[in-house]
């Protein structure tokens, strides 16, 4: 009996195909890589040379923005991307088509997530390169391990959360709105676009409860000269990781291959009637 190709090989093929599919989508490329770059250039043009005050002390604006926007790019490449694209592929029947093949679910989604992580790596490297080249960004080599670990924890957690939320987005039409309505307002209270100085208490609480601000802050810490030592923000990382675990559990329950029209609502009705 002929053997199935190994999971590693299938994983590689899936990752490559997902990566090609993403990089050939102009809309995805613009929102994931283009927009944060535009913002980085704009913010530096508008506020460059200034300083930011955080509890640890005063530090330069370019360190703050590059860290914040790099982290935001990583979230765009994973969370926003998956919330956008999973419901579209589900409604178009692409997921169902994959369900018809012998590819294991874990390998299919694994390849997709790996591709999203690769896009995130590209985005972060792009932001940091622009920062170093044009805006005197200083990267402390001693904090690079912390930066990499923080990045890895963050993108994995946000990929899981994206998958989880994609499962409850009702259809393809509402996907872009759902993705942006959740992440953009949150970004404003999560130190991405503006450092919050004495915000209203409730905005601060919202920022602290959701995982974006802890991730952004942990990533900024690795670029913040007032933070001494290795730059690891263990509490924030554990908190983000817990959100990621929560996302994975929810994703397992909400993920479906079936389009939302017809089949899915029918099977939902069936489940309820049992």
């Amino acid at each position, binding site marked *: 009996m002929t053997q199935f190709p190994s999971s590693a090989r299938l994983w590689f093929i899936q990752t490559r195909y997902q990566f090609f*599919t993403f990089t050939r989508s102009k809309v995805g490329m613009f929102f994931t890589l283009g927009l944060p770059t535009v913002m980085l250039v704009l913010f530096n043009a508008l506020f460059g040379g200034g300083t930011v005050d955080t509890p640890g002390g005063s530090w330069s604006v370019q360190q703050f923005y590059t860290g914040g926007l790099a982290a935001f790019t990583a979230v765009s490449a994973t969370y926003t991307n998956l919330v956008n694209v999973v419901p579209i592929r589900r409604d178009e*029947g692409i997921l169902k088509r994959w369900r018809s*093949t012998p590819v294991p679910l874990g390998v299919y989604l694994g390849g997709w997530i790996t591709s999203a992580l690769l896009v995130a790596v590209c985005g972060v490297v792009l932001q940091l390169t622009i920062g170093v080249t044009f805006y005197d960004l200083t990267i402390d080599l001693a904090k690079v391990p912390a930066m990499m670990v923080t990045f890895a924890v963050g993108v994995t957690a946000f990929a899981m959360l994206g998958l989880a939320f994609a499962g409850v987005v009702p259809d393809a039409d509402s996907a872009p709105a759902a993705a942006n309505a959740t992440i953009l307002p949150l970004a404003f209270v999560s130190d991405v676009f503006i450092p919050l100085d004495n915000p209203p208490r409730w905005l601060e609480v919202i920022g602290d409860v959701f995982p974006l601000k802890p991730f952004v802050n942990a990533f900024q810490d690795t670029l913040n000269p007032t933070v001494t030592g290795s730059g690891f923000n263990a509490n924030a990382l554990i908190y983000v990781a817990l959100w990621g675990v929560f996302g994975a559990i929810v994703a397992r329950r909400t993920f479906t291959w079936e389009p939302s029209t017809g089949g899915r609502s029918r099977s939902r009705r069936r489940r309820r009637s049992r």
Partner: protein
Amino acid sequence: MSTVEVHGLVKDYGDHRAVDSISFTIAAGEVYGLLGHNGAGKSTTVEILEGHRHRTAGEVRVLGMDPAHAGREFRDRIGIVLQSSAVERELTVRESLNVYGSCYCAPRPVAEVIEMVGLTEKADARIGSLSGGQRRRLDLALGIIGDPEVLFLDEPTTGFDPVARRQSWELVERLCADGMTVLLTTHYLDEAEHLADRVGVLVGGRLVTEGTPAELMAMSPLTTITFTLPPATSAATLHLPSTAVVDGASVQIETERPTQVLADVTGAAAALGLELDSLTVRRPSLEDVFLALGGEASP
């Protein structure tokens, strides 16, 4: 043992019984057509056999396996051409066949499949740029890339123009010649007649009859003859049978003896030097077969 065995299959959606205890078998290498209107339960039945949907009751075996609990090995041996399903528009035809084919134990060579479905010239075109008919051919290509033993074709030509339908039939026939077992759903009687060895007719979730296309057609023996009555002629001058329905100038005759009736009528017309405009002879349509079987006409 048959390749596909269905016994007492039932599927309920809430209070609605979409499939009502149907049974049929498909032998290895046979092309079986499930014929019926929209909502007759064709797609539900096929999706249960594909493993996409769970059944309410009954026994189902495909290649000796229960699709409801079958996994990767099962999906490796079947091919599915879904009714409406996109492919990633950003990929090219060749890339999509490569990546989909990569999941199977022993896929067919990509170039061979592209050639088979006639997409050689479009092999490196993005799927987003293909026409509707070309995409449907890609659907077929993706259905057979894994070299399946059983192929499910869910309404393969719905929405096609007549030329595209012909081409797609030829393609399916070529595939069937390889000895693949095929389950085809359609609401075109001529499609079933052309492609299927045996046909099951679904009406309201029940399998009301089964047989070869010829046997089915024989169930409604009436052939319909229509034409326009020439000016200044009457039913009597043309020797119209008593069953003829004359509505203004248009005449419709339903008969079990079309040869005789045609000879009488055209003979009378020719003797008078008259031409019968819009003369048509129509064999039983799906509609007629359905009506003969007690089904309801389509809306």
